[in-house]
């Protein structure tokens, strides 16, 4: 409790409060525009945080993440197009509800459910992160290496249809992270004699290229410039009036669905790499399974909106748990936040929550999440009429602006044009990966955690050359065992499916 109060004291600084508010507004705006993701929003905001204190910078990005998770609701309800991937399940019921003449009720349900889901997620964060950090202090280099291996396999198995492609993506990220200098003795590796490459690829241009540039190229390929604008023009923006009392009554009558969806979302967030899009759909699916009226889901049923929005907001809190407690990102957004901490000279890991020098920052982030959740509700309701109109901003205006912001973000990091070329190269790589069914989150996690894996395996071997310690130390053995089990399980499932697919043809 004392630590939370310390965090509150740090968070209540005017510059931090204003930055969070600005982040929330930016997040809602970016979240409501179809084709942009919360990750892209957080990445684009990152360069603006370079001149800020670490807490201010993280609070801004958190505001974008929380605001973006709610902002996706607006286009999901009014256009039937999710503003962000984490609003996919929201369209199932919010759009039919709006079409039945209740757009205000749909927006009100989603916004209030986001608040309550975020608050429940916050309790999970505040209660789970500190003990997990204490547990993380027991980790030696063997356990940290095993944790990286476990994170990559879990990410690979959860993030897409093909485990093999997920692991390839993660390993490719690890391989590209080795370009530059050896982390201990600074011996050049894969630099091709270029002095620019001796520092390796910086995390920010890699991230911007992978997520922002590749996403925009995919949208342009799909012709979204025309479809998006035609779709937007086809929408007659309704007069939005939100019946708050009726909405709160609906939420009270569905309190069990709200609680269950929020806990599902928070739990998904705690698992590394499972993000808002999974939480949104899984929370909706779980709520439908436990509902007394599952047949009403998909017809504009209020429980569907509550479940999806509560789940996709509480996941943001869950994502912060492994990030703050262990220094392992919960999803791509927290991977960016980890990168931001490193840029500000703060070392993530279990000590972030336990070392007196950094507890103010860590608990300030925890308190800040709650503040961002509440502010999102206020800003979204207050600015709803304006935000609704932003859905009509033409895509052909947004795309060049976003690319300029992306280039600027890469440039200001080290003031080198070389970083823009890194962004360009990884943008093409990200586009090609996505086109061929490779997921990007495993790549990012592999790129971010690869150096950590290398440093820790070297430390482990320097401490003792006995490799069996990876298997005899209980936590390390458990994590490596789970990693191996998930790989074997998913490979076996894939092989069984392949055999079933082929067998009917070979039978006479």
């Amino acid at each position: 409790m004392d630590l939370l109060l310390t965090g509150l004291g740090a968070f209540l600084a005017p510059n931090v409060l204003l930055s969070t508010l600005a982040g929330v507004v930016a997040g809602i705006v970016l979240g409501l525009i179809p084709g942009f993701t919360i990750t892209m929003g957080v990445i684009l905001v990152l360069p603006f945080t370079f001149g800020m204190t670490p807490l201010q910078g993280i609070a801004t990005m958190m505001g974008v993440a929380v605001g973006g998770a709610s902002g996706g609701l607006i286009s999901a309800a009014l256009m039937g197009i999710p503003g962000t991937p984490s609003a996919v399940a929201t369209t199932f019921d919010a759009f039919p509800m709006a079409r039945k003449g209740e757009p205000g009720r749909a927006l009100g349900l989603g916004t209030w459910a986001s608040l309550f889901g975020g608050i429940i997620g916050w309790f999970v964060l505040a209660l789970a992160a500190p003990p997990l950090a204490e547990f993380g202090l027991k980790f030696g280099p063997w356990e940290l290496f095993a944790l990286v291996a476990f994170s990559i396999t879990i990410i690979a198995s959860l993030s897409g249809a093909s485990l093999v492609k997920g692991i390839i993506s993660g390993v490719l990220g690890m391989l590209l992270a080795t370009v530059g200098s050896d982390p201990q003795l600074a011996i050049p590796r894969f630099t091709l004699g270029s002095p620019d490459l001796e520092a390796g690829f910086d995390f920010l241009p890699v991230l911007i290229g992978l997520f922002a540039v590749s996403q925009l190229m995919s949208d342009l390929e799909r012709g979204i410039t025309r479809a998006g604008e035609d779709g937007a023009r086809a929408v007659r923006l309704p007069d939005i009036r939100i019946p708050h009392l009726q909405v709160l009554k609906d939420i009270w009558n569905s309190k069990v669905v709200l609680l269950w969806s929020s806990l599902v979302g928070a739990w998904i967030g705690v698992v590394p790499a499972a993000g808002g899009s999974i939480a949104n759909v899984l929370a909706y699916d779980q709520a439908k399974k436990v509902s007394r009226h599952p047949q009403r889901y998909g017809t504009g049923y209020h429980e569907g909106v509550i479940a999806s929005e509560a789940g996709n907001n509480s996941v943001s809190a869950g994502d912060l748990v492994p990030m703050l407690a262990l220094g392992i990102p919960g999803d791509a957004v927290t991977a960016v936040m980890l990168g931001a901490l490193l840029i500000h000279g703060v070392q993530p890991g279990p000590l972030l929550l336990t070392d007196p020098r950094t507890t103010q920052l860590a608990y300030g982030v925890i308190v800040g999440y709650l503040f961002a959740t509440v502010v999102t509700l206020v800003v979204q309701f207050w600015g709803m009429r304006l935000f609704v109109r932003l859905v009509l901003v033409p895509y052909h205006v947004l795309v060049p602006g976003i690319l300029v912001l992306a280039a600027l973000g890469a440039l200001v990091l080290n003031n080198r044009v070389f970083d823009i070329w890194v962004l360009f190269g990884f943008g093409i790589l990200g586009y090609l990966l996505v086109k061929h069914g490779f997921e990007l989150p495993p790549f990012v996690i592999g790129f971010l955690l690869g150096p950590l894996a290398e440093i820790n395996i070297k430390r482990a071997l320097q401490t003792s050359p006995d490799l069996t310690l990876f298997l005899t130390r209980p936590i390390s053995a458990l994590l490596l065992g789970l990693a191996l089990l998930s790989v074997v399980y998913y490979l076996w499932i894939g092989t069984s499916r392949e055999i079933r697919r082929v067998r009917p043809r070979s039978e006479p």
Partner: protein
Amino acid sequence: MSDRQVAVVLLGVSGVFYWQSLAIRPPPFAAFEALGAETFPRWVIAVLAAFSLILLARGRGPLLPRVDRAPLALWLARFRLPLLSLALFAAYAVAIPQVGWLPATFVYLVVMQLVLRPPSGRQLAYVVVGSFAFAWALGEIFERFLHVVLPRAALF
């Protein structure tokens, strides 16, 4: 490309990285290190190659690329905008150190909007004025408030 073709490309990437790893020369004082600078990358390359082989074995689609002229026009039509956008972005990156950030950004914004949706009449004026205003405002935010010096022109 099919999964099997992608697997072959990845095996090629693994091969190139392995070949480059042979050029990593640790200095004499690094002899005490348990793992040399080249060891971890080689383990990662081995894992990448192993899973690429699994993808090659389990993947679907042809192994050899088919050269077919007819769909080329369709391919170009489909990828016209992404390819143009990437080419313009590359030109923008080349231009920044030569002409300075503000002129390069202004021209890039105008050209990109012309390519994505050619304006007519008064819309062109809006594009030009809006692009200049956006570029200028962004430059001011970063230089005056965030104290980040943006590239100046090398040519003049």
